[in-house]
């Protein structure tokens, strides 16, 4: 029953003439078909990257973190840069699934499933870096506060690095639960239309025996809403805590109160760019252009230009404060070693990619152009990688003691580790795109009759009517609830 009435002026969320069954067909049939050649090629490349990553990490574990080009001045390099970059990417998924749910943004239904999957895979990639940066990775469990035989010697609850352990693991767990609880009904859909025994068995197990009972849906809705309410402050807290890793230190360039909002905006910025990169490919390969429409891309591009500008403001604020505060070390970090100096090139890549280039999205034509969006999404991700590199490395490579100054470039195990996380991410994403419903089927169905193109067309005639004509029409066929008019009539009665 659609008590919500949406004007035809609003762009439809689902294009084309579709009924509920057609929605199921469109989204589920790629799971049942054999994957195309491109899928195998992509999956193979991802596996190769993953294997190379595993080799690089094994090398690092065997010989120690000394194989990375870190030294006593630059204690954090590519590893922590990549950690922050991947965590940031994850944030868009939670933003789409949680914050946009609370704000009742209907367009999230087309993209939330894939974005949440991206979150989970990105957080998995992110977690690798701090764990292997520990060096003696077999001692990684020391970060957990458990009663131990070393005293018991507890972890330091005052340390932002420990807050990170709690933040990232909570974030991963909650995102996974949120994602999987949304998948249950869709797995049941795959199960009930499965033709082969194996598929019926596997999706039967994965669906937990979901039936679609009204009571279960009622609880499911309550669960989704509360999980969204919990995830919203959670996602903000996660990148805030990541920024505390820097902000609570006394390094010039890190010790600043602007970091939490600046990091969160940057995270959403890079995350939306990654969602665009992935979804532009997915919609093309799986033929889902009717569900992930230009309207969806435009909405996300608006978020990109907004958050990009927030990030740009933060860069300028930092520069201003570095001058205005009149602290010579702060001034030197920003004006001599960040915007200039041997690593100055990275600062200008960051500025160009994050602040200048996203301004093209002020134009609607650019926001709705698939090619421009795709190229921009990659530029933004490069820019955001450099943002973390700039924050970490340009603050460290020239410290208080000029004799310890050095340049920093990564060694092959560092690059290999990073490539390996791409392998992990895309291996997971290819499996997801093949075996999981990439669009939330049930959620699309629940917005179909208010926001689907064909259903909105039926509303046009009522929008042309005067109030008197509409009222007369209602009494005329009060008991016929068979067409779109019926939905309006019901809305009227309620």
């Amino acid at each position, binding site marked *: 029953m659609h008590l919500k009435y949406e004007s035809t002026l609003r762009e439809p969320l689902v294009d084309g003439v579709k009924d509920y069954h057609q929605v199921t067909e469109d989204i589920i049939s790629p799971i049942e078909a054999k994957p195309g050649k491109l899928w195998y090629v992509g999956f193979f490349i991802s596996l190769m990257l993953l294997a190379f990553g595993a080799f690089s990490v094994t090398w690092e574990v065997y010989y120690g973190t000394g194989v990375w080009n870190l030294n006593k001045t630059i204690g954090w390099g590519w590893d922590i840069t990549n950690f922050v970059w991947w965590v940031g990417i994850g944030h868009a998924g939670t933003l789409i699934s949680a914050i946009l749910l609370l704000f009742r943004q209907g367009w999230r239904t087309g993209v939330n499933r894939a974005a949440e999957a991206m979150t989970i895979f990105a957080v998995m990639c992110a977690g690798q870096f701090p764990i292997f940066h520990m060096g003696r990775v077999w001692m990684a469990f020391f970060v957990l506060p458990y009663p131990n035989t070393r005293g018991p010697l507890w972890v330091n609850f005052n340390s*932002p690095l420990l807050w990170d352990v709690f933040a990232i693991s909570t974030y991963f767990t909650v995102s996974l639960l949120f994602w999987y*609880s949304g998948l249950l009904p869709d797995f049941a859909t795959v*199960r*009930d239309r499965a033709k082969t025994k194996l598929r*019926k*068995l596997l999706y039967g*197990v994965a669906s937990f025996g979901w039936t679609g009972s009204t009571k279960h849906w009622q609880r499911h809705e309550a669960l989704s809403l509360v999980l969204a309410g919990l995830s919203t402050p959670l996602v903000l807290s996660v990148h805030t805590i990541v920024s505390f890793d820097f902000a609570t230190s006394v390094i010039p360039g890190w010790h600043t109160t602007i970091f939490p909002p600046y990091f969160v905006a940057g995270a959403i910025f890079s995350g939306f760019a990654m969602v665009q990169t992935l979804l532009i490919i997915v919609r093309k390969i799986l033929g889902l252009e009717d569900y992930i429409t230009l309207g969806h891309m435009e909405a996300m591009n608006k978020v990109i230009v907004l958050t990009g500008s927030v990030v740009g403001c933060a860069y300028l604020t930092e520069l201003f404060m570095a001058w205005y505060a009149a602290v010579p070390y702060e001034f030197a970090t920003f004006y001599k070693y960040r915007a200039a100096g041997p690593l100055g090139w990275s600062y200008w890549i960051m500025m160009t990619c994050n602040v200048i280039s996203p301004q093209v999205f002020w134009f609607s034509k650019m926001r709705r152009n698939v090619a421009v969006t795709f190229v921009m999404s990659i530029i933004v991700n490069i820019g955001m990688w450099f943002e973390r590199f700039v924050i970490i490395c340009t603050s460290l490579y020239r410290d208080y003691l000029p004799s310890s100054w050095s340049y920093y470039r990564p060694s092959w195990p560092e690059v290999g580790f990073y490539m390996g996380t791409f392998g992990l991410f895309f291996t997971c994403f290819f499996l997801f795109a093949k075996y999981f419903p990439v669009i939330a089927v049930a959620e699309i169905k629940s917005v179909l009759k208010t926001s689907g193109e064909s259903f909105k067309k039926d509303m046009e005639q009522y929008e042309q009517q005067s109030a008197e004509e509409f009222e007369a029409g209602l009494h005329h066929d009060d008991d016929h609830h068979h067409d779109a008019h019926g939905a309006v009539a019901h809305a009227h009665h309620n």
Partner: protein
Amino acid sequence: MAVKNFVVASFSDEAVLFPAVKKVRTAGYKLHDVYTPFPVHGLDHAMGLRETSLHTAGFIYGITGTTTALSCMSWVFNSDWPMNIGGKPHFPLPAFIPITFELTVLFSAVGMVLTFCYLCQLAPFVKKHIFNPRQTDDKFVMVIEVTAKTNAEELKRFLVSAGGEDVNEQRVESGWWFGRFDREDRLFETKVEAVNA
């Protein structure tokens, strides 16, 4: 677990389903459930279901997380191993906030999901009877229990007149059991019935 008789009717349109639910309830039939492919807003009220208290459970789990985090951290820092960390106080409340918040969210989310699965009896390898395989696709499937007082034939005619399609009677297991969806349903007769037979 019990084997029962049900009359099953499918609907293609929510606008037909709602009046039908109303009619069935007015006529006094025992509405077992309505299975839908997506959450149909207002259907729970139309069926006379009460609101869920899952949010309350979530709140209780949340404050459990808050107290766990605060009490554990202050016990560690104040009584189990009081350590001087840079001369900072032993109860640095602002520094405890991040972990306290994370544990609040973690306890609440995990607790709610487990409670949800328990209440709905959802788990891997749990099997339930699917009255119509299209109830997870595009049909709204109304299931009415045939009790001693129900005239099944009359009920079927009644459902057809209310707009139900594909009206049929099924004798099935009404609860859940451990099973696989690629296998046939199992019928668990109650002991009383077995003795009578």
